[in-house]
């Protein structure tokens, strides 16, 4: 069975403004409004791409995951249950596809970097457009990248979703198909490793 089965709808219910917008767009898209579907994609696709890039460290693979994720959403949107969280559903699809990709890579015994374009070359640091953030030197960024690469998939996913995507641990548990407590432990371990690796800078 394909992972990221969109049939398993998350239980989490969100009532943030973004979630309310999603609900209206999803309803319209379910009625066949292509423009609404496109707006739904555009509301989430940067986050999806960011997540896939962070988890896979390969732009080529992230592109594939982006496309397959939204195609699954497109094909299964009619099954989406209102009252559940679209974001949780979408992120579940994305993380499962990323995990599948990493398993395939492992099977192929490939380097995690994939031998493709360097991730750092493709990601635009916000620091460049924000003078307050220019303090972060390339060297620190590289150390951080190296530390993140050492995290397990689950630790990285939990950290990424909590720190950069703002999901609550309960929602992250839903996304990753685990408990809130397990997600909490992952977050704890991830920050501990980052703290240990960057200790001299803190």
């Amino acid at each position: 069975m394909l992972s990221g089965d969109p049939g398993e709808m998350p239980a989490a219910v969100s009532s943030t403004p973004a979630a309310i917008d999603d609900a209206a767009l999803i309803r319209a898209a379910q009625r066949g409004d292509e423009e609404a579907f496109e707006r739904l994609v555009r509301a989430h696709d940067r986050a999806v791409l960011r997540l896939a890039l962070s988890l896979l460290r390969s732009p080529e693979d992230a592109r594939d995951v982006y496309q397959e994720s939204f195609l699954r959403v497109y094909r299964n949107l009619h099954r989406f249950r209102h009252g559940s969280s679209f974001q949780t559903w979408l992120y579940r699809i994305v993380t499962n596809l990323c995990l599948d990709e990493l398993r395939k890579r492992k099977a192929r015994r490939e380097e995690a970097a994939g031998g493709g374009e360097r991730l750092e070359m493709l990601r635009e640091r916000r620091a460049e457009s924000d003078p307050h953030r220019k303090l972060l030197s390339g060297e620190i960024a590289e150390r951080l990248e190296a530390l993140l690469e050492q995290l397990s998939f689950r630790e990285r996913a939990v950290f990424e979703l909590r720190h950069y995507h703002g999901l609550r641990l309960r929602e992250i548990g839903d996304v990753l198909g685990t408990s809130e407590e397990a997600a909490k432990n992952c977050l704890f371990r991830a920050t501990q490793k980052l703290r240990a690796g960057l200790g001299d800078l803190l």
Partner: protein
Amino acid sequence: MNCDTARERIALYLYGELTADEEEALTGHLKGCRDCRAALEAEKRLHRLLDAAEAMPPEALVEECRAALGRAISETRREREPWGRKLAWLPGLRSPAWAWAARIAVAGALVGAGFLAGRWTAADPAGEPAAVQVRYVEPEAGGRVRIVLDETRRRVLEGAPKDPQIREALLAGVRNPFDPGVRAESVDLLKRMASAAEVRRALLYALENDPNDGVRLKALEGLRAYVSEPECRRVLSRVLLRDRNPGIRAKAVDLLAGAMDADVVGAFQELLRFEQNDYLRLRSVRALEAVGAPPETF
């Protein structure tokens, strides 16, 4: 609370993930413990560092993904929907901006500069844009903003089908992914000009790839006189085995039966392994018998 527990909880505290009781216990401990307060400050510095390292995917990659997704969705729709429902994609209905991106990308890949596929013809500086897509919005210094627009303009071309410009537009029309009506008209006009290799390539493409039965049938008719060409036979052999429409498979059998070679024999033998249609089976067996080939492979 001891210091070990406090240190463990500081990380979750900054994420707002402690229960009210846990938070109260931690803040109580922090008030009386300088070392743990220092640890909290260090944790805040870690967060600032992580925030500063936040990277967003480049816009070019986002746009690339969107255009590819638009194409993939169009493909999915073509595979899933019966012919009639595709009428929703006839012009006049507003289509999503990414469909435009996909159209432009497809057209750009197929024809030279200055031409866009089918009815979405080349830009006319004097005309009103038929579709506008905001590509980038870039805030600039002094409260100004720079906006990059992709505009698609409509232009009317008139002339004989053989005019180079018209023919080029018709060739693009064959590959218009959104409008079977445009493809059908384009193929119908082009099939009278199949003596040109470029036109035959377009017809072969339509015969093998077009999701619409009518378009494929017209393309096949246009190729009738060229079955002696190896490429034409190769495509017809694939059509014979893969086309979902038995009427089109039957026409392919009829054409190929008059142009048997080793590959065609193989295709007929392969067909006999799976084909359910009695007429097609009979025609294939006869065609094989006519050249002394066995109906089965062993």
